[in-house]
């Protein structure tokens, strides 16, 4: 019985924890500009993150080795370090974007400039990372993030033209006035928002934090196979509401205030309150995850003690990295760089960097020395290898598209 509760809690947390500032920005922007013509990317990205996280979680449960441990071990010191620098940099950008997102959510409710909230947000993040037990932290923000379900309900309330929506999702075409490079650039952004590397760093390290063993493989499976698709449904709902309300009006969203307009229209103040709370919780939760992930990646590369399952004095270097990363992320937001633009860059770069961490995880998930009878099966290998090819293509295409489209114009 306790096990069932645990499984259910894990799934709910995974749903609420799926969405972050990247999804909020990418899903709304693509919905407003392309309708549902990019909805298929969300499906591709969700299957991708399921494969990736399932492997990483399984390896962590069986061998106790989280992602960056594997990166170092498979790629060696030099390549591993290059990988660390790239992954850390992108995670740091994402952390800054999430901090900005939390501050923007508060700004939306108070109309007080978000920059004033940033230092306060940073302090609260640090206190939570420093004091709150891992599971409490993970569950709280994941569950409150479920308030975003209001976007899903709003779809029905807005009485959309279901046939038109279904047609545009199933027969995707590039809308008039948008170029093909822009279409593919947004496809990559959307893929990066669904498949952020940090999610996998956090997921696999979280498995070690919660001391998963062979018996917890069921939690791994249900989290990933039920939680992630339902979480992706929330991201899809953001795209739907934008496609229904914003696209016909020609609104190209650049602020969170535009993201929540459809909910206001559908449900009024109560819906708006839920939307803002949901945005706050999921960006705050993601800020915690990225902040910890900065520490996880560095500590796991160098072999330092890490994690919240030990006292801070037992993992001092890990906590120093976490603190410094938070400081750096905060300073980056305080430069007044637009957090929404920062998000756009971070998700695109995240997509480009995916093979760096995907490949080592795939290799180890196949290694019977590590995995014994829990190594990848033939079918999952076929699927995982297809995704490797896809991610490599994306990685090569990203930077040229970024330049050609001037970051989506």
């Amino acid at each position: 019985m306790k096990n069932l509760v645990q499984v259910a809690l894990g799934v709910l947390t995974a749903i609420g924890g799926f969405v972050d500032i990247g999804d909020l920005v990418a899903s709304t922007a693509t919905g407003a500009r392309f309708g549902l013509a990019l909805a298929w990317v969300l499906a591709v990205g969700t299957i991708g993150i399921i494969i990736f996280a399932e492997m990483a979680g399984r390896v962590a449960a069986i061998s106790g080795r989280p992602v960056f441990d594997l990166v170092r071990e498979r790629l060696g010191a030099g390549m591993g370090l290059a990988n660390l620098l790239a992954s850390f940099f992108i995670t740091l950008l994402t952390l800054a974007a999430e901090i900005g997102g939390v501050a923007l959510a508060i700004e939306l409710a108070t109309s007080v400039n978000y920059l004033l909230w940033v230092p306060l947000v940073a302090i609260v993040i640090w206190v939570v990372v420093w004091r709150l037990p891992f599971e409490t932290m993970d569950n709280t923000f994941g569950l409150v993030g479920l308030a975003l379900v209001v976007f899903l309900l709003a779809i029905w309330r807005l009485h959309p033209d279901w046939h038109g929506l279904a047609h545009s999702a199933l027969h995707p075409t590039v809308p008039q006035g948008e170029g093909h490079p822009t279409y593919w650039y947004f496809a990559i952004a959307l893929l990066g928002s669904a498949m952020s590397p940090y999610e996998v760093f956090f997921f696999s390290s979280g498995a070690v934090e919660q001391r998963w063993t062979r018996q917890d493989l069921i939690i791994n499976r249900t989290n990933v196979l039920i939680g992630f698709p339902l979480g992706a449904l929330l991201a899809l709902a953001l795209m739907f509401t934008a496609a229904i309300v914003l696209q016909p009006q020609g609104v190209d969203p650049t602020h969170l205030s535009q993201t929540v307009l459809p909910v206001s229209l559908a449900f009024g103040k109560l819906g708006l309150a839920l939307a803002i709370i949901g945005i706050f919780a999921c960006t705050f939760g993601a800020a915690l995850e990225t902040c910890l992930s900065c520490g996880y990646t560095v500590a796991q590369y160098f072999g330092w003690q890490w994690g919240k399952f030990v006292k801070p004095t037992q993992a001092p270097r890990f906590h120093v990295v976490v603190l410094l990363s938070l400081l750096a992320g905060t300073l980056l937001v305080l430069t007044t760089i637009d957090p929404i633009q920062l998000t756009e860059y971070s998700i695109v770069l995240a997509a480009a960097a995916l093979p760096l961490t995907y490949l080592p995880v795939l290799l180890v998930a196949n290694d019977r020395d590590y995995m014994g009878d829990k190594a990848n099966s033939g079918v999952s290998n076929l699927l995982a290898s297809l995704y490797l090819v896809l991610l490599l293509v994306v990685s090569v295409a990203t930077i040229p598209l970024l330049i050609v489209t001037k970051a989506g114009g």
Partner: protein
Amino acid sequence: MRRAMTLLLLLAVSGCTGPVRSFGVYESKAANTARKTASAVATAELAVQVATRDRTFGRTAAQTLAEAARDAGDTQGIFDAIQPPDRRSDQLRSQLDDLLQPAVSTLEDLRTAARRGDVESMARIAAPLEKLAGELQDFDEAHR
């Protein structure tokens, strides 16, 4: 790797503006400006719609309208800083300015009304927005 990425970021950010030498480029910038302004105007329309029907918080409405007004103002500022390269471009500019000017000032008025919580006058001020948004979109389509 990190240095390369930082460089790329800078490149991507700085690559957005540059001197404009031909009518074609100027025209596409003008179309872009019209589209962005239309987006801000449409946002304001929606914000007024939810505010007048009491479907949003005063502060959220104020925030939304402040952002829309700032976006429109910024977009106009960036466009005005571009030197028109020839006579045709001059004409295009004045044509677009006739749309930008009322859009920006209407959004500014709305921002002020929203900050005061003056919902009654918001609907009145916003009345010309629908027509303006349509004209801006037409301009965009004609010149892109």
